């Protein structure tokens, strides 16, 4: 082993610190190919580069930074060497790109190899005084490339790919075979789609030119003709924006485009209750939905009411007309406003009108783009040929109405027509009405059920790929025939002789909760809730755990389910089927006649469910007086106890809110949905729910006691008054009102709000109330005060999720914490530090706009 040291100096936060770092150079780093073996090479080094390959590619930093989509989605690039210098600079500039490239590298089918050139004795370069870090890195990259060229001398061709023309020339001078990505793409025969995926060349130069132009323009302000060539005003630079924000001139917020009117948008700024309205294409100024933007307010008196018009994307010519009309309308409106202002003795009606008006503003700059991948299709009447080019310019219409059309280039038009495709935005220049983007992949035909389902999943950013190999490797080797090991049974409390039952919706495959009840000699009851022990199978930090954390929930669509865990676990080994021994995590209470808790026991158990009932079956058994078997008696006792629990909860002020749950009846053969019906709640539904709530609360108390800082809990914040404004206003018409100060008061006022002859009114009101409330959230106990732990909807001082580990990741974490509090299995420091639990909670937030089954509590 060879040692050498360099000294690096670094300054941080104004204080000049002398940071000295060691840097070891090594002899044992391999080249990742079986063609070359070095003496003393480190043994476990794997060699992904194929020896049959024609050429090995070395990518420059800018290729990975800008062409990540192409690298990710096309198999065109194979046998690629990624240099450590490149990876390090990517990690510094974009953690997201870094994660994506790491994912590609770890894919064994892609044959990517990371060469640690910074620690290789032959490829390390010292920085020269006066040289910029960027220049030094480029030199390091070229040095590594030339090392590869020399080492593989004639055996295999080494191609260095860079889009930096200066670097390209230097590399060629040093005798490295180098190309730009476009030259390389044009040589490729087998991957026609690869070219489409590339971000357009010379983009940066173009931008530079425009910026230069702009600067010129600024200097000659009279030169108005030039100015008019641009469709949009210029964005301010980051520095100007931040200065403006600190001076209070600009505001920062997230933009939401009105889905019904493309020329209207709202910006929510932190610390302001009301959002600001932005109208007109020029004022929105190239901001795309969910970007973080800087806005400047128009003078205070320019308040605008929401336009009730619906404007969608139209063709370009029509659009201009629309805009004109729109501007006219705007003028009228402002005139109206002026009139209003003049008329100072306004009557009450006018006052009310003004209240619903919002402060208007315009966008002066973009702080952070939040572009993602968009699904959509090609606009048919826009197909026209560009002169002399083999590329065709097309317009892409996104499925999401909030997103503008995107201009893309392709040379495979025929293959794209009438297809659903995925596209990303690359840039949006001032002189272009639409943003420029590039094609990523084709999903399939428009209108196909499978394809459209996938569109829904992509649009909501649900990870839905099938489980990768690493994850599947975590499954037990025996697959379905897996048996509980004897030593595991010995460790647990054996409850297999108890009469344990499960009650679930019909056709439920992932049963994660079971119940039992038995009479004790002292007249009390023993009630147990048994939850599938997922944490026994899914160990912390394993690939399956990481994947589950990423998915965070199981997502239910009409015809399919996007599982959080592989089906072998979710539907088989963890699911508590009838008459099969299963591992569980149990909460067992001793309850008295009135269902008050005498004592609680937590622990790992092994059970054997005696009956897996559906809600309907359970209800029938309970109501049939002839049935007198053990199972039915259990249901009756549980039902009796649950009534007490429900009563006590209602007394404390728990809300009975309604969110309409629908149920699809499916054709049993074709799996086609036939009809939609409102889901009927039966008495036994409440039975199960009550005990699950009780279990969740008991567990929450326990983990909070043992992990006062890092317990993963769930809270439901008290509602915000302003969000109820609309509802309360409409209620005034019925002479009704709601008191939202506490759950109890809200619950009472909801009960009173009844209109005779309209039984549905109360239900509707409950639905609207649910919608107006803030969402319940996960949090780490150390981040808030105890009084803020309150769950408003359930009126519980402390609450967590414990009962559905098969379909919610939060429950898995809670299981681990509980196990650790019982000294069964320790948890890593990830779950014992409030900061890292806080991070986990952030990921667990249900993805935007997705209805998740049973998510109401």
């Amino acid at each position, binding site marked *: 082993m060879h040692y050498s040291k360099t000294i690096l100096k670094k300054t941080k936060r104004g204080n000049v610190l002398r940071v000295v770092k*060691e840097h070891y150079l090594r002899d044992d780093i391999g080249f990742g190919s079986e063609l070359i073996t070095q003496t003393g090479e480190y043994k476990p080094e794997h060699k992904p580069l194929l020896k049959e390959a024609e050429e090995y590619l070395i990518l420059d930093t800018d290729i990975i930074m800008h062409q990540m989509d192409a690298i990710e989605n096309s198999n065109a690039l194979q046998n690629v060497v990624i240099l450590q210098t490149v990876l390090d600079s990517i990690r510094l500039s974009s953690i997201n790109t870094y994660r994506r490239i790491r994912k590609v590298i770890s894919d064994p089918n892609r044959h990517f190899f990371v060469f640690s050139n910074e620690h290789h004795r032959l490829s390390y370069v010292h920085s020269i005084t006066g040289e910029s870090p960027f220049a030094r890195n480029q030199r390091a990259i070229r040095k590594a490339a030339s090392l590869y060229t020399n080492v593989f001398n004639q055996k295999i061709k080494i191609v260095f790919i860079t889009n930096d023309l200066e670097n390209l020339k230097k590399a060629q001078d040093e005798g490295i075979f180098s190309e730009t990505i476009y030259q390389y793409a044009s040589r490729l025969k087998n991957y026609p789609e690869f070219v489409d995926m590339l971000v357009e060349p010379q983009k940066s130069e173009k931008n530079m030119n425009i910026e230069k132009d702009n600067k010129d323009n600024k200097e000659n302000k009279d030169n108005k003709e030039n100015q008019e060539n641009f469709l949009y005003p210029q964005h301010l630079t980051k520095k100007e924006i931040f200065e403006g924000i600190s001076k209070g001139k600009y505001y920062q917020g997230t933009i939401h485009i009105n889905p019904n009117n493309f020329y209207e948008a709202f910006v929510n700024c932190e610390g302001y209750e009301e959002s600001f309205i932005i109208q007109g294409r020029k004022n929105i100024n190239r901001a795309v939905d969910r970007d973080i933007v800087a806005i400047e307010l128009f003078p205070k008196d320019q308040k605008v009411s929401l336009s009730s018009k619906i404007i969608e994307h139209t063709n370009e010519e029509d659009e201009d007309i629309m805009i004109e009309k729109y501007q006219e309308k705007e003028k009228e409106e402002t005139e109206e406003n002026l009139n209003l202002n003049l008329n100072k003795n306004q009557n009450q009606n006018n006052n009310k009108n003004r209240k619903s008006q919002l402060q208007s503003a315009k966008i002066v700059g973009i702080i952070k783009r939040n572009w993602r991948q968009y699904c959509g299709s090609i606009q048919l009447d826009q197909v026209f040929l560009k002169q002399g080019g083999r590329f065709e310019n097309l317009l892409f219409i996104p499925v999401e109405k909030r997103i503008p059309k995107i201009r893309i280039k392709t040379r495979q038009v025929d293959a794209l027509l009438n297809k659903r495709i995925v596209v990303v935005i690359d840039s949006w220049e001032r002189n272009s009405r639409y943003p420029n983007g590039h094609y990523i992949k084709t999903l399939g035909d428009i209108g196909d059920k499978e394809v459209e389902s996938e569109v829904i999943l992509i649009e909501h950013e649900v990870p839905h790929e099938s489980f990768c190999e690493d994850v599947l490797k975590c499954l037990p080797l025996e697959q379905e025939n897996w048996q509980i090991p004897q030593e595991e049974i010995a460790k647990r409390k054996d409850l297999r002789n108890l009469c344990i039952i499960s009650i679930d919706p019909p056709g439920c495959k992932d049963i994660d909760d079971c119940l039992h009840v038995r009479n004790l000699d002292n007249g009390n009851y023993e009630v147990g809730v048994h939850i599938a022990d997922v944490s026994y199978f899914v160990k912390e930090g394993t690939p399956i755990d990481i994947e589950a954390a990423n998915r965070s929930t199981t997502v239910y669509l009409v015809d399919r389910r996007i599982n959080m865990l592989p089906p072998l676990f979710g539907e088989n080994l963890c699911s508590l089927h009838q008459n099969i021994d299963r591992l569980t995590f149990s909460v067992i209470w001793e309850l008295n006649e009135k269902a008050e808790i005498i004592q609680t026991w937590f622990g790992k158990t092994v059970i054997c469910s005696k009956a897996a009932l559906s809600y309907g079956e359970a209800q029938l058994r309970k109501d049939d007086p002839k049935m007198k078997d053990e199972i039915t008696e259990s249901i009756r006792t549980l039902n009796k106890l649950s009534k007490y629990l429900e009563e006590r909860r209602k007394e404390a002020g728990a809300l009975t809110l309604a969110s309409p749950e629908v149920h699809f009846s499916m054709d049993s053969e074709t799996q086609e949905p036939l009809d939609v019906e409102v889901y009927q709640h039966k008495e036994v539904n409440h039975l199960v729910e009550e005990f699950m709530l009780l279990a969740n609360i008991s567990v929450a108390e326990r983990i909070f006691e043992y992990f006062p800082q890092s317990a993963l809990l769930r809270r439901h914040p008290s509602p915000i008054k302003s969000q109820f404004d609309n509802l309360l206003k409409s209620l005034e018409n019925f002479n009704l009102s709601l008191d939202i100060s506490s759950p109890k008061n809200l619950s009472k006022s909801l009960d009173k709000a009844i209109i005779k002859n309209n039984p549905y009114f109360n239900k509707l009101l409950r639905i609207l109330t649910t919608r107006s409330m803030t969402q319940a959230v996960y949090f780490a106990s150390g981040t808030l005060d105890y009084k803020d732990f309150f769950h408003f909807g359930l009126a519980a001082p402390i609450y967590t999720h414990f009962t559905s580990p098969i379909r919610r990741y939060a429950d898995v974490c809670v299981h681990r914490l509980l196990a650790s509090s019982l000294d069964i299995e320790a948890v890593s420091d990830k779950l014992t530090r409030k900061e890292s639990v806080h991070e986990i909670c952030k990921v667990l937030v249900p993805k935007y706009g997705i209805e998740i089954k049973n998510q109401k509590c």
Partner: protein
Amino acid sequence: MEISEYVNPEGLRIDGRRRKELRKIEIEMGKLEQVDGSALFVEGFTRVMASVCGPKEVENRSKAVEDKAFISVEFLSATFSTRKRTKMSKKDRRVLEICSIIRKTFEPVLQLELFPESEISIFIQVLQADGGVESACINAVTLALIDAGIPMIDFVCSCTGTYLDSFCILDTNFIEETAGGSILIAAILAKSKKVVSTQMKISRLKMENFTELLELVVDGCSRIYDLMEDATRKRTKEQLNSQTALIK
């Protein structure tokens, strides 16, 4: 957001070492003439000088012990040893802690009962601190005691390890030590492989990880022992040579 990877997927640490590799170690013994024994222990950029005086008469009479020698430890960290210039007072918690670690580690190893009512004083000076300072101190003191010729039952060797990002890492440098993992400092008796002292910082570690970490650190200690033994042999040979030269 995880900005740094302490061990990258290629298996290299920030400074280019693999997980179980020690830093470069250099040992120099007997460079100071004014004291009875001295040693400089260099581990990467951590540099510790230890010197030993004694056994001698006890300076502060009240501290004398009737049946064995008394160990006094003085610890000094140069202001320029760390990134930020800090001056540690003699009563600083960290100074007192390190002194007590040294005393407790060496009390059972030194044959103190041979020198009743006398004092063995140990001075430690940290010239550069880049992680693993406590371990380097223990190693330097062992060597200085050997150089001073004080009878010991065995070598005491120490090493530091950490459990970070679900990896066990040996011989931490400053960056790895301040990364927030659980740090284990262990000192062993080299020949009998007995663990004399262990210390944990920022605890909470799974039992199985702790065992793995301890094994790794003990292995590191025995590798350090080999180097220390070599240095001792070299030093003894030098002394022998110079003495025979004198006699001639």
